[in-house]
C-alpha cells in the first residue's frame, strides 16, 4: 500500500488522532472544533462545519487551516491578516491552507458571503487561543507572570523590557507536540485595537500572478495526462436514448466511458479529445421547452412544489387587503430579470489522478468538501479515499459548485489508468454551466397621501428569497416567493435573488416617491427601519452633494438624471448613486457611480474596496446588457462576441465610500455591494427621460426610450 492509500483526511479523524506534528513538525497546535449548526440559518440540520486550526512551528511561523477557498475574491490575505493580528506575527510569517480536504476543516462551501463572518471569526478565536498558550509558555521561560509577558513580531518578552530577555516563538515551542482546544472564554483582540487587520496591507503571493507562473487548474499537467471531453445533450432536458462509442474508441489512444447519462472520452491531446467526442454517435430524446418569448407565462403556470426548496419565505404582518381599502395611493408593478451567465474568465476545469485506490481531484470549485461527498457517492468509494485540492481559480461568482466534471474526470482516469484533465471550452461554459435564474416579481403597495407606506405585497417567482424582506417600516406586509420549473439550468450566482428583489423594491419605492413628489433620498430616510442603512445612505448623499428634489416624471431638458437605491443583505448595507445621460439617439451613458458600503469591522480595507468596485462593474453588466437568449432549451448566444459583458469602454468613474464599524462584527463584502447598481441606474433613467424601466437588462442594445411609450 502506498503512503497515499493510508492517508485519512483530518476532518474524518478525532482531533487527538490527527497527525498534525508528523505533517508540520513539532510545535503547538490549537483547534477550534467544527460546530453543529443551530436550528435555523446557514447549514441548519447539516453536519458540524467550520472551525479552524493553527500550527505554530519551531521555525516560528504559523500555519493556519480553513475549509473556505479563494477563487479570486481576496479572502486569503484578509484571513492571513486575522491570524497575524491575533498571533502578533508579521504577515509574512503566516501561511494559510484553504479548502484542501485532506488537511482542512470540513466546510459547506464558499458562498453566501460567509468567509468573514465564519472563517475569519473562527481563525480569530483560534489565533487568540494560541496566543494565550504562547504567553503561558513565555511566562515559564522568562520566569514572570503571564500578565507581564508581551508578544510582538513573533517574539515574547517581559513587558517594558525592550529587546532584553526576549524569546522567539520557535524557541517557545521547540520540542513540543502540544495540542490545545480553543477555550470557551477565549477573547480575540477587539477590532478597535487591531494594528494589522483593518489597516492597509499588501496582498500575499501576488508575484506569480504577474509573471504567469501561477498555475490554475487548467494549467496543470501530470506525467501521462490525458485530456477529457464530455458529450453534452443538444438541448436542456434532452435524455440520452442510445450511444455508440465504437468510432471514438477506434481512434488512437482514446478511452471512452458511458455510465448512465455520462458519456466522456479522453485522448492524449486536447485536439484528439475534441475529435473523439465529435466521433461519438448519440441519439437524444428531447423534452419540449418554452421559448424565450413564452418564458414569463410559462413560469407563472409552472410552480414547482415539494420540500426541496430551502430558499422560501412566507412573511405576513397585519392585513394587506384591508390596508389597501380606501388607501389614497395604490401602485402595482411587475419587475423581471433575465437569465445571465457567470462567465468566469477561467472556465470550469478539473484534473483527476489515482494513486492505487485513492483519488486526487484538483478542481476550481467553491465547494471542495461537497465535491468530495458527491464524488464518493457517485463512484461508490469512501470519502476518505477522495482528496480534493483547490488550486488557484480564475473566479467563480457562485458558478463553480457542481461536481459532475470531477466525477467524469475520475471515471476517465480510472478507465485510462492515467491522470485526466477536463476544461470547458467557452461555449461549454456558456451552455453547460448553470445560470442566474430569471426573476419575476409582482409588487403591490398602498400609501398615505404623503407617501407613508401602508401595505406592501411582494411576490417573487423563481428567483429566491434573498433581500425579499423590506428594510422600510410598513405595518401591513405580505412577502413570499414561489420556486418554478425553469426551462434552463439555474442555480447560485453572486448576490443571486438579492439583485432581483432589490431591483424590484428600490424601483417601486422610487415610483412611490415620484408619485407623491417626494425627494427619493428623503423619502427613503423617512421610512427606513434600519439605522445603519440610513447612515450609509446619508454618507452617499453627502459624498455626491445630493440636491433634494423629486425625480422628474417628465424627464430633464438635458436628459441627465440621477438615481439612488439602498439595500440590506447578508449583514451588509449598501447605498448606490448613479448618474446617467441619455443621448439624442437614446444612447445610455453611465456618467458616475458611487457605492457606499458598511459591513461592520473592515478586515482588509484595500480588498474590500476592490470587491465593492469589482462588484459594481459586474452588476452593471447584468443591469444594462447581459442576457442569455434561448430557444427550445438551446442557448443561442454562447460566446463573448454575442454575450456582452462589461469592458473598459463601459466603465464610468466609480467612487467607493466605506463606513468602518470596528464596534460591529465583520460581515462579507463580495455580494451585497452589487444589489444597488441596477435600481440606481433605472431610477436615474427615470429622472433623465421620465421612462420607468422594469426589466433587466435595462439597455440590451445600449439605448433606452427617450420618452414614456416612446
Amino acid at each position: 500500500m502506498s503512503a497515499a492509500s493510508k492517508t485519512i483526511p483530518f476532518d474524518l479523524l478525532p482531533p487527538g488522532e490527527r497527525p498534525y506534528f508528523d505533517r508540520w513538525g513539532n510545535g503547538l497546535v490549537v483547534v477550534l472544533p467544527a460546530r453543529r449548526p443551530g436550528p435555523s440559518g446557514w447549514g441548519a440540520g447539516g453536519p458540524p462545519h467550520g472551525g479552524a486550526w493553527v500550527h505554530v512551528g519551531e521555525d516560528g511561523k504559523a500555519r493556519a487551516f480553513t475549509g473556505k477557498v479563494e477563487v479570486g475574491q481576496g479572502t486569503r490575505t484578509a484571513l492571513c491578516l486575522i491570524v497575524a493580528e491575533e498571533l502578533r506575527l508579521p504577515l509574512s510569517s503566516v501561511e494559510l491552507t484553504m479548502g484542501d480536504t485532506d488537511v482542512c476543516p470540513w466546510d459547506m462551501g464558499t458562498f453566501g458571503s460567509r468567509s468573514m463572518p465564519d472563517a475569519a471569526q473562527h481563525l480569530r478565536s483560534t489565533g487568540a487561543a494560541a496566543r494565550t498558550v504562547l504567553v503561558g509558555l513565555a511566562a515559564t521561560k522568562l520566569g514572570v507572570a503571564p500578565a507581564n509577558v508581551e508578544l510582538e513580531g513573533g517574539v515574547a518578552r517581559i513587558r517594558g523590557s525592550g529587546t532584553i530577555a526576549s524569546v522567539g516563538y520557535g524557541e517557545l515551542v521547540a520540542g513540543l507536540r502540544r495540542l490545545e482546544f480553543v477555550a470557551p472564554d477565549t477573547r480575540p483582540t477587539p477590532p478597535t485595537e487591531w494594528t494589522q487587520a483593518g489597516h492597509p496591507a499588501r496582498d500575499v503571493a501576488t508575484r506569480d500572478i504577474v509573471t504567469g507562473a501561477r498555475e490554475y487548474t487548467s494549467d496543470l499537467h501530470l506525467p501521462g495526462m490525458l485530456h477529457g471531453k464530455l458529450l453534452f445533450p443538444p438541448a436542456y432536458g434532452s435524455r440520452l436514448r442510445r450511444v455508440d462509442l465504437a468510432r471514438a474508441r477506434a481512434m488512437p489512444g482514446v478511452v471512452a466511458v458511458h455510465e448512465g447519462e455520462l458519456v466522456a472520452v479522453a485522448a492524449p491531446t486536447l485536439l484528439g479529445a475534441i475529435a473523439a467526442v465529435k466521433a461519438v454517435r448519440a441519439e437524444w430524446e428531447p423534452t419540449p421547452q418554452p421559448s424565450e418569448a413564452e418564458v414569463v407565462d410559462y413560469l407563472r403556470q409552472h410552480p414547482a412544489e415539494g420540500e426541496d426548496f430551502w430558499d422560501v419565505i412566507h412573511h405576513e404582518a397585519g392585513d394587506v387587503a384591508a390596508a389597501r381599502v380606501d388607501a389614497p395611493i395604490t401602485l402595482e408593478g411587475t419587475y423581471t430579470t433575465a437569465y445571465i451567465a457567470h462567465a468566469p474568465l477561467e472556465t470550469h476545469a478539473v484534473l483527476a489522478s489515482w494513486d492505487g485506490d485513492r483519488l486526487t481531484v484538483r478542481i476550481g470549485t467553491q465547494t471542495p468538501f461537497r465535491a468530495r461527498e458527491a464524488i464518493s457517492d457517485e463512484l461508490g468509494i469512501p470519502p476518505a479515499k477522495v482528496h480534493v485540492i483547490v488550486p488557484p481559480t480564475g473566479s467563480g461568482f457562485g458558478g463553480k459548485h457542481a461536481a459532475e466534471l470531477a466525477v467524469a474526470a475520475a471515471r476517465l482516469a480510472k478507465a485510462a489508468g492515467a491522470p485526466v484533465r477536463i476544461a470547458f471550452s467557452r461555449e461549454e461554459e456558456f451552455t453547460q454551466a448553470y445560470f442566474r435564474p430569471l426573476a419575476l416579481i409582482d409588487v403591490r403597495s398602498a400609501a398615505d397621501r404623503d407617501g407613508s407606506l401602508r401595505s406592501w405585497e411582494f411576490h417573487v417567482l423563481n428567483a429566491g428569497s434573498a433581500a425579499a424582506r423590506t428594510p422600510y417600516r410598513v405595518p401591513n406586509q405580505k412577502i413570499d416567493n414561489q420556486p418554478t420549473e425553469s426551462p434552463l439550468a439555474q442555480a447560485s450566482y453572486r448576490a443571486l435573488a438579492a439583485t432581483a428583489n432589490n431591483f424590484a423594491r428600490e424601483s417601486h419605492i422610487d415610483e412611490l416617491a415620484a408619485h407623491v413628489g417626494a425627494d427619493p433620498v428623503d423619502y427613503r430616510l423617512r421610512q427606513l427601519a434600519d439605522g445603519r442603512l440610513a447612515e450609509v445612505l446619508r454618507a452617499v448623499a453627502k459624498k455626491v452633494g445630493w440636491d433634494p428634489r423629486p425625480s422628474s416624471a417628465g424627464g430633464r431638458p438635458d436628459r441627465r438624471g440621477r438615481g439612488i437605491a439602498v439595500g440590506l443583505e447578508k449583514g451588509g448595507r449598501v447605498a448606490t448613486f448613479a448618474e446617467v445621460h441619455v443621448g439624442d439617439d437614446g444612447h445610455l451613458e453611465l456618467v458616475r457611480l458611487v457605492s457606499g458600503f458598511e459591513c461592520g469591522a473592515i478586515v482588509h480595507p484595500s480588498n474590500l474596496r476592490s470587491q465593492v468596485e469589482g462588484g459594481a462593474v459586474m452588476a452593471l453588466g447584468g443591469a444594462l446588457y447581459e442576457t442569455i437568449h434561448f430557444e427550445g432549451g438551446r442557448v443561442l448566444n454562447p460566446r463573448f462576441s454575442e454575450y456582452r459583458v462589461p469592458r473598459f469602454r463601459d466603465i464610468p468613474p466609480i467612487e467607493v465610500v466605506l463606513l468602518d464599524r470596528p464596534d460591529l462584527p465583520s460581515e462579507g463584502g463580495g455580494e451585497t455591494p452589487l444589489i444597488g447598481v441596477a435600481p440606481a441606474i433605472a431610477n436615474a433613467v427615470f429622472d433623465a427621460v421620465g421612462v420607468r424601466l422594469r426589466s433587466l437588462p435595462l439597455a440590451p442594445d445600449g439605448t433606452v426610450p427617450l420618452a414614456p411609450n416612446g
Partner: protein
Amino acid sequence: MASLRVNGVDRSVALEPDRHLLYVLREELGLTGTKYGCGEGECGACTVLLDGAAARACQTRIGEAVGRSVTTIEGLASGEGLHPVQQAFIDAGAFQCGFCTPGMVVATAALLSRNPRPSDAEVRAALDGNLCRCGGYLRILDAVERASQRLGNPGGSTR
C-alpha cells in the same frame, strides 16, 4: 517541423495548419501563463507579443508565427527582475483572481512600447479587447498609469 522563436529561444514545433499559437504554447511548449479564455479573440487572455505588437494567440495560426519573434508573459521581464508593467500591476493591486492579468500585462506592455504616454481614452481603446470578469478595470487603468510614469522616469520614483 518548423522553428518558432519564443522568448528568445528557437523551439521546434509541428507545422499543422489548423493549430493555433495558443495551443502550441500551452499544450506543447508548457508556457501556460498565456491563458485560454474564449477561443474567438474576444477576451484578450491569450495576448502575446508578435514582433513586439500585441496579438491574440488563439487567433494566430501557427504558420503565421513561424519566422517571427513571440514573447509571452514568461519572457516579458529580462533576468530575475520584473518588467515595469508587472511591477505596476502589483503596486496598484490590479487583480483579483489574476486570470486576465498576463493578457492585461502583455497588452499594456505593447501599448506603452508604441505610445509611452497614452491618454485615458487611448488606454481604454487599446485594452478594450481584454476582459476582466472580476471587474478590476479601474485598478488596471491605475496600473497602466503607474507603468507609464515608471517607464517615463527610468530609475525615478513613480509617485
